[in-house]
């Protein structure tokens, strides 16, 4: 099962907390908005990712699960 980070660009207001928590998976563009590389999330980062999703002030992050890795 793979998990991917999905960011709703309409909801996002560039607080940047997600990039702070997950620099391995999320970086910020020159305007402060998050860029996700789209690759599956390593298992050891899953807890932090859930934290980032829960604490996003705009609730812009969801974690997408997909059965079977790819």
């Amino acid at each position, binding site marked *: 099962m793979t998990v991917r980070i*999905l960011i709703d*660009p*309409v909801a996002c207001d560039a607080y940047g907390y997600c990039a702070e928590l997950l620099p391995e998976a999320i970086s910020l*563009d020159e305007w402060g908005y998050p*860029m996700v590389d789209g690759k599956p999330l390593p298992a050891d980062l899953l807890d932090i990712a859930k934290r980032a999703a829960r604490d996003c002030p705009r609730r812009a992050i969801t974690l997408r699960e997909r059965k079977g890795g790819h």
Partner: protein
Amino acid sequence: MSPNASETMPVTGRYRLLGHPTDLEGHLTALGPAPLPSGRQRGWREWFVSVLEASGLAGRGGAGFPAAIKLAVAHAAGPGGTVVVNGMEGEPASDKDKLLLIRAPHLVLDGAQLLAAASGARSVTVAVPQGREHVAAAVLAAMAERARTAHAPVPEEMVRPPDRFIAGEESALAAWFETGRSLPSFRPDKGTALRIGRKGALVQNAETLAHVAMIARTGPDLFRAHGLVEDPGTSLVTISGSVEHPGVVEVDRGTPIIDVANRATPLGPPQALLVGGYGGAWVGPDQFATPYASLSLRAVGATAGVGIVIVLGRDVCGLMETARVVHYLAGQSAGQCGPCVYGLPAIADDVTRLARGHADPGLLARLERRLAQVEGRGACRHPDGAVNVARSALRVFADDVRRHAAGTVCEHWNRGTQLRFPTVLRAAAS
């Protein structure tokens, strides 16, 4: 053929949308009635879906999404929704939908009625932007004819959203019905149906609906006799720019784009073609033989997009025209997503500097980086269009890029534009 088809097949010969009578009586005489189900005709839906699938009809509104799949998704969302005729045509360089609604409104409305019957929708709504009064009048007149003679199984009505580029994006159109603001929504799952309130909404481009109405009458084979296997049928294309006879033509899919452009008699050998609209891409002379079809165009970095071919003459600067396009697109952003709101003006600024010969040493690298950063990071494909057109400009006008970056601009960089833009540019979403 429909289980209850009349004995004659009125439409023979070439498949075409244009050139048939406009009024209801003439339309029925020339093409016969739309093969709508009579009463609770069994098997009609299965027949209609099979015809649509077999035809391979893809949407003509820009995304090229298979019409049969869109119908299936809408049907799965349950009955009672509406079929929305997307007559918004936000691309300034496109006239095909206006033309269809004025010259062939009954074809478009027949298509909507057919999809309504197949999806369980209980109404048809035509969206025509504010300000297009001649189109609105033609649609209203056609609707009145149909209502009077009982040719509208589900009620037909018209709505007038604001005339903005983004207002024709299908989720923005659906949002306008609910909130009065044309704001696209973030839809990571393309398979979910659009909704207006609790009811499903099947939004289809006006030309796509015209094809639906024709294909239902003629069967899939006549449609497939034109175009390519992977991209069948005909398409309406608006040709503009440096040409003698700008206008809308109907072409087979797969026609080489230069042949499409030549239908409008270019004033001279084109410097480049802008294919697919302002969110489309430039194509250079070495690729003028590219077939006008989705896959073929994608292979050269372009998209079929909306049926638009703009001829760029040799007496104007391609980079300057690109700067204008990107500035226009930046101003038409819905204003919801950071990468679009900040990224497009930044890209427009870089392209303008390049066009004017004011490039700093880091400009090209910065522009490439910004294009990569902005792509795919909006809720809708609007920023992707701007990225497409800018990237293709860097490729097709590479010689100009080199010269301008070094500070030498073309002699005609300051010419007026050969492109069309609305005179009044408004950015407000509401």
